[in-house]
């Protein structure tokens, strides 16, 4: 046992409490910082090996741990690009030099180049839809690009698929061969007609006239024309023959298509792709011509009007015609031990050997949680807790100083023994 | 989540729409009370509107026919009284002729009598009503009988010429004295009589047509509505008078004159009988027209009754509806103000 040892122990206690007060100060200072994770001082003993009769005091070492896994309260805002993670995941951001980092601070706004950056200046990363629906690279940052929303870009996509479901009137008059729509003559007759908008490669609208004509009992001819070729006023004859024709055979007893009947029609859209129109839900009953469903995919060229972010992380751009297009998908990252992530300035974390490797997944799909648009995660610091910790630390510090003071006084007595 | 099943808009709107309907109805019923007819016949009757129009049309036509029947009636009245005058004259002339045949009457008196008869008959047959000559047949704008006494009268000339042609001398010539009774009788029967009874009548005497006026006396019944001066009675009477007036003035001997008188008597007798028949026929037509008018009036009453059944509105019922509607509208007003009061807003501080 030694007085020095006791004094050192007191000093180590004081320094540990100073560290703790430091974290408290930090926490209180950042109590309003979006995505801030409170720091927490944990203490551990330093023990000197002792014989049975004497006790040499050891000391205390402090260890600062960040409560990264503890979520903050979500505060709702009115900006669509304010994002919060509801769950365990992290946004992947990069700094200006391109180093990928993790963060929970989601107050993103577009910068001058259209990149989404948060308050600390980090750029949000995501997977692009440029080459089709993205897949995630589970254990690396490969394939991630800064999410850039350039308002000037125009996009279009050609129609490739669609569907038509309708009831064809069983009582329709049979049209004789020679005056069918497919014959494309002025006297062409038809039983029912509808039209659909399809898009060519450049996003131009192509109006398709779909004529349905009863050619015999339970047999219908479907002929598709390009409306731009129509003769004004009469439509027939069209400047060019039908784009596609198909024959539908119905079962006379059920009114549904027979098993052998064609169920779709492949329409070569002028200057566009082949549009496969599904007609498997057509029926032929005694009711009149009734359309149940008709749709064709594809988008006309248009610029971005509004950007919306879904809770699955998909960044949608809404174009002038009201159509939507997914531009990016924001992934969420997670690590085995989030609390052991290395904390860097600007509310960002980087993976360390303690935290484990980064695993990346899409929101709502794994265990990373989902993205909430229009909300921010507030700091997870509780002022009351910090204040009580501060009072406690203050008292502890005082107690440690008393230990040191006592040691010092004992030292005085010891020194004064020799006169 | 919505928990109520009535919207405030509806609460206010439903009273409003019903109020509007009731007000429109009120205007309609008010009009019906005033006119006693449905406000819009076409709307109320639908496919029966044509029936109503047809009956209204018929009522108008029936009224016109009654009017025209009255016209025909007064024409026939005139005709009847004319016929009566001629018939009375015939009776009197008959007496004169009978007396003349027994020789108790001076020839000059017989002539005067005959001339008077001709004047009277001509006057009667030339009588007119409303500017239409009653006995002219359809030729009502011309005087039916030519004046026998006018100089160069074709009738007189024809008779005298016929005498000359038949006997070779004029009846005023001294040789006329030689004509015996039988020759004179033959002359009167074969030459003079056809002049009156045959087509010569229309040349010498009459401008009237045989055809008489036809009138529609009911919706689908027509009837002769006049008597022509060409009727047999008139011709015979005229012949009886004219033969005496012409041949008594000549140089005929007593026997020949006797033949004239006898022939005239016989003619007058036939004329009396003919005129009686004509009077009876006219009477029958008059009766027919009167009955027709009565029937038409009955028909009008029936039609008007039916029209009233179709289009009429019970004034009592209509006025009851007015008061009911008024009460309903007042209730609606009260209701509106009560609904206005009925709001939670009024009870919140």
């Amino acid at each position: 046992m030694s007085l020095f040892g006791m004094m050192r122990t007191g000093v180590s206690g004081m320094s540990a409490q100073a560290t703790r007060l430091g974290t408290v100060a930090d926490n209180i200072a950042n109590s309003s910082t979006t995505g801030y994770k409170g720091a927490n001082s944990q203490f551990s003993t330093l023990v000197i090996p002792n014989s049975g009769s004497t006790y040499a005091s050891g000391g205390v070492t402090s260890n600062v741990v960040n409560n990264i896994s503890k979520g903050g309260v979500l505060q709702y805002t009115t900006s669509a690009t304010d994002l919060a993670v509801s769950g365990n995941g992290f946004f992947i951001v990069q700094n200006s030099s391109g180093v990928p980092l993790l963060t929970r601070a989601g107050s993103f706004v577009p910068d001058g180049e259209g990149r989404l950056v948060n308050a600390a200046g980090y750029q949000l990363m995501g997977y692009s839809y440029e080459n089709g629906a993205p897949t995630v690279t589970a254990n690396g940052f490969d394939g991630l690009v800064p999410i850039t929303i350039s308002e000037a870009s125009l996009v279009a996509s050609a129609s490739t698929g669609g569907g038509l479901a309708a009831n064809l009137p069983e009582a329709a008059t049979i049209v004789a061969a020679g005056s069918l729509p497919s014959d494309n003559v002025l006297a062409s007759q038809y039983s029912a007609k509808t039209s659909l908008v399809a898009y060519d490669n450049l996003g131009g609208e192509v109006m398709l006239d779909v004529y349905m004509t009863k050619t015999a009992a339970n047999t219908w001819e479907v002929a598709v024309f390009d409306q731009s070729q129509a003769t004004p006023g009469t439509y027939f004859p069209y400047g060019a023959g039908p784009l596609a024709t198909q024959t539908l055979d119905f079962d006379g007893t059920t009114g549904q298509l027979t098993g052998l009947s064609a169920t779709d029609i492949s329409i070569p859209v002028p200057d566009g792709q082949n549009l496969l129109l599904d007609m498997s839900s057509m029926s032929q009953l005694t009711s009149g011509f009734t359309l149940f469903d008709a749709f064709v995919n594809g988008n006309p060229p248009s610029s971005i009007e509004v950007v919306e972010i879904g809770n699955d992380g998909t960044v949608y751009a809404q174009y002038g015609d009201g159509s939507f297009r997914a531009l990016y998908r924001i992934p969420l990252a997670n690590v085995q031990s989030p609390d052991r992530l290395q904390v860097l300035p600007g509310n960002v974390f980087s993976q360390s050997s303690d935290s484990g490797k980064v695993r990346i997944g899409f929101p709502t799909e794994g265990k990373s949680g989902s993205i909430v648009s229009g909300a921010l995660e507030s700091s997870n610091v509780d002022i009351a807790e910090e204040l009580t910790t501060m009072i406690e630390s203050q008292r502890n510090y005082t107690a440690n100083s008393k230990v040191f003071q006592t040691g010092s006084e004992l030292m005085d007595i010891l020194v004064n023994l020799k006169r | 989540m919505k928990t109520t099943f009535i919207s405030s808009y509806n609460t206010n709107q439903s009273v409003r729409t019903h109020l509007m309907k009731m007000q429109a109805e009120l205007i309609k019923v008010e009009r019906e009370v005033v006119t006693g007819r449905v406000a819009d016949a076409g709307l109320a009757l639908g496919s029966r509107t044509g029936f109503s129009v047809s009956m209204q049309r018929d009522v108008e036509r029936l009224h016109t026919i009654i009017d025209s029947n009255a016209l025909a009636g007064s024409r026939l009245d005139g005709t009847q009284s004319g016929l009566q005058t001629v018939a009375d004259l015939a009776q009197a002339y008959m007496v004169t002729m009978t007396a003349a045949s027994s020789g108790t009457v001076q020839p000059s008196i017989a002539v005067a009598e005959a001339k008077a008869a001709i004047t009277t008959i001509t006057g009667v047959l030339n009588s007119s009503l409303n500017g239409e000559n009653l006995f002219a047949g359809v030729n009502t704008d011309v005087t039916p009988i030519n004046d026998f006494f006018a100089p160069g009268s074709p009738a007189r000339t024809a008779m005298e010429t016929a005498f000359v042609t038949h006997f070779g001398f004029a009846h005023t010539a001294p040789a006329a004295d030689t004509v015996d009774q039988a020759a004179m009788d033959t002359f009167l029967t074969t030459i003079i009589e056809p002049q009156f009874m045959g087509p010569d009548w229309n040349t010498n005497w009459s401008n009237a047509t045989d055809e008489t006026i036809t009138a529609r006396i009911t919706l689908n019944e027509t009837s002769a509505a006049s008597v022509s001066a060409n009727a047999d009675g008139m011709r015979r009477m005229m012949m009886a008078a004219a033969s005496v007036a012409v041949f008594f003035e000549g140089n005929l001997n007593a026997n020949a004159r006797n033949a004239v008188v006898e022939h005239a008597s016989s003619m007058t007798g036939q004329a009396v009988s003919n005129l009686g028949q004509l009077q009876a026929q006219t009477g029958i037509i008059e009766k027919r027209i009167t009955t027709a008018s009565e029937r038409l009036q009955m028909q009008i009453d029936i039609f008007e009754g039916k029209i009233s059944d179709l289009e009429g509105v019970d004034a009592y019922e209509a006025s009851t509806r007015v008061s009911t509607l008024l009460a309903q509208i007042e209730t609606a007003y009260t209701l509106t103000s009560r609904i206005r009061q009925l709001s939670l807003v009024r009870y919140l501080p």
Partner: protein
Amino acid sequence: MSLSTALGIAQTALLNTQRQTTILSRNLQESANPDYSRRGAMLSTAANGASIVDIRRSTSDVLFRQNLSALSAWSAQDTLLNGLNTLDIDLFGTDNANHPARLLGDLQTALQTYSSSPSNTSVAENAIETARQLVSALNTSSDAIQAYRSNVDREIVTTVKDLNTLLADFQAANNEVVGGSKVGRDVNDALDQRDAILKQISEIVPVSVVKRANNDMMLTTASGITLFETVPRPVTFTPTAGYAAGAAGNSIYIDGVPLAAGSGANTTASGKLTALVQLREDVAGGLQAQLDEVARGLITAFAETDPTAVNPDLAGLFTWPGGPTLPAAGTLENGLAQVISINAAYDSSVGGNPHLLRDGGANGVAYVHNTSGGTSYSDLLLSFDTSIGTPIAFDASAGIAGTISLSAYSTESVSWFSALRQGSSRAADNKSALMMRTAESLSNVTGVNIDEEMSLLLDLEHSYQASAKLVQTVDSMLAALLAAVR
């Protein structure tokens, strides 16, 4: 849990209450708007306090569709009834006073008066004058019908223009709805707007709605013609500049398919356009054909005959440009009522002689009946009255078939039109009642009840007070803590 969390939740609660109050005040503001659907804020519990997840709009698809179809049916019936009433007053006057059937009655009356004093020139003139009025009524009615058809065409043009505008508006609203639905934005205002436009469209054409992904709508007419699919389909109509009797007007084309006209008094038409076509073709066309047949009947009834039956019958008092030959028997002669005229030979104002009506002979001496020249000759006059009542064959294509008299035909025509008007009026009452009823039901489901909103407002007020109290409490607790730090 911590005080900060409590504070955060209280803050969220205040925000929620505010947003709910906003929605509520919007509801109150729009309570008198029939096209507004009540909104309700849907709260959901999140880990850190309730948040508004959705603003729900009260809707009922079934009632809305019923309302749309009732609206279409009523609009058509109303259009038809208005058209019929307009034609009724325009052509025939109050209580059919100007109807040819009435004027024919007047002519018969005048003939009766004439026949009772045939020598009287003034009654003869009166008979001719009455005939002239009849002819003039036929002429002006025909002209009015053709003018009416042109007017209907103009109305169709305006309505088609409205429809195209509405479809364009619909596209804008639909794009907004689809766009918003894809990202879960509040599209309720756009939905309201779209429904309101849809109601207006269904007044013009009957609409059948196909719902697609993302609240997208495809519109077809009841008969399956595409009205709107991503983009509006063109509705086209070329008006006819001037109508000739019997000439059919142009069809209205939607997406190149002609729109069928309605038929019947209780019309099968749905929407204003089909009813307008029905008015133009069936009603106005039918009336015209009947007037033409009446005109033909008149020419035939007053035709001059040769008493010796050697020469053919020729047009008498009433004639036409094809005269003196008579129009073919039993066949509709289109536009005859428009061109029928009084034979100049009878017209004293152009040197004619009205007494020709009594005597015959307008077509030469061979046709003189009054050979004796008697001025009180009435047989021919009486025969005209008879021939008005004599059955002749009428063309079935004019709507009244059979061999009936001209007199009966004219009243049948009155009945035909009145029956149409009566049936239409009754159907309009029914359809209007159904329309009101469905609108009421819909409004009961989607409309705002002020009392309900006010009571909800009380709830919100309490909730707000409680949240504020919470904030206050947390504040005083923190104050106490801070006081402890010296």
